[in-house]
């Protein structure tokens, strides 16, 4: 689906907080917190699918921050599946 990016849309940053740490400096402009939750869950599912040799995801999560680097969502991988 084509998302429309406008100046008024909030930007969210998606970080991996464990295992293979990833600090997102690009971020994505999304319509709001629900779209950010969808992206975070999809991201967690992608990582689990892409790294099948890792069997224990219990310590992994996606942290979502806003422009002010405030954490607005914390999605443990165990809740994404």
């Amino acid at each position, binding site marked *: 689906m084509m998302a429309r990016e406008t100046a008024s849309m909030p930007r969210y940053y998606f970080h991996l907080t464990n295992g293979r740490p990833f600090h997102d400096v*690009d971020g994505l402009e999304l319509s709001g917190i629900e779209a950010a939750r969808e*992206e*975070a869950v*999809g*991201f967690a599912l*992608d990582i689990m699918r*892409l790294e099948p040799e890792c069997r224990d995801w219990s310590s992994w999560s996606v942290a979502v921050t806003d422009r002010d680097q405030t954490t607005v969502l914390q999605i443990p991988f165990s809740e994404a599946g």
Partner: protein
Amino acid sequence: MNLAQLIPNRRNRLLAALQPADFSLLAPHLKVTRFKQGAVLQEAGDPISQVYFPESGMISVLAVMQGGNGIETATIGREGAVGIMAGLGSRRAAGRAVIQVEGESSQISALNFRTIFDQSPSIRELILRYNDVQMALVQQSAGCNALHHVEKRLCRWLLQTRDRCDNDILPLTHELLSEMLGVQRTTVTVVARALQAEGLVRYRRGQIEIIDRDGLEKKTCECYEFVRAKSDEVFSS
């Protein structure tokens, strides 16, 4: 007679492979149109109204699921065509065709194409051969999408795009890459950053520059070479 000399602007390899008599059947009906990135040429399930022969740029064909998420099943540049099955009587598009890299396409209405297809045995033979090869490529693509790591698939995608654009700087957004590879946009960022860390690409928002083409070829799956060799079979009769 070399057709490429007769029609210097026709860079599409299917059109260029036609005998002059065959091309003269198509030529009066062909119209060249420039398409921008993101333009949808056909939607899956819709009636095929036009056949497109890219002269430059690149088109992706996507399988689209009910939820709206999709994945690329074929990449078509100047070696191919979109909607060509209309010649065989196919009425509806099997996938969504989207312009990935802007460029020009020669297009003809499906109705006219069908009529000409029925008139010329040699056009028929070329299209059937092209269709055979396309089927093999879509098979390979299904296997690649299911079995190969997204990092290898991104490498293949970058190489294929570069081959068609003749340029190391590729205008690719997160949005497009995520649709092509069937992963989230953030996953694209992670993978692109990993390739950058290895010195293979330089990555900016909306653009990827290939730094080490040979390195990408070493890293990608066997599918890149398979597709390249298979595509040439259309033209080696």
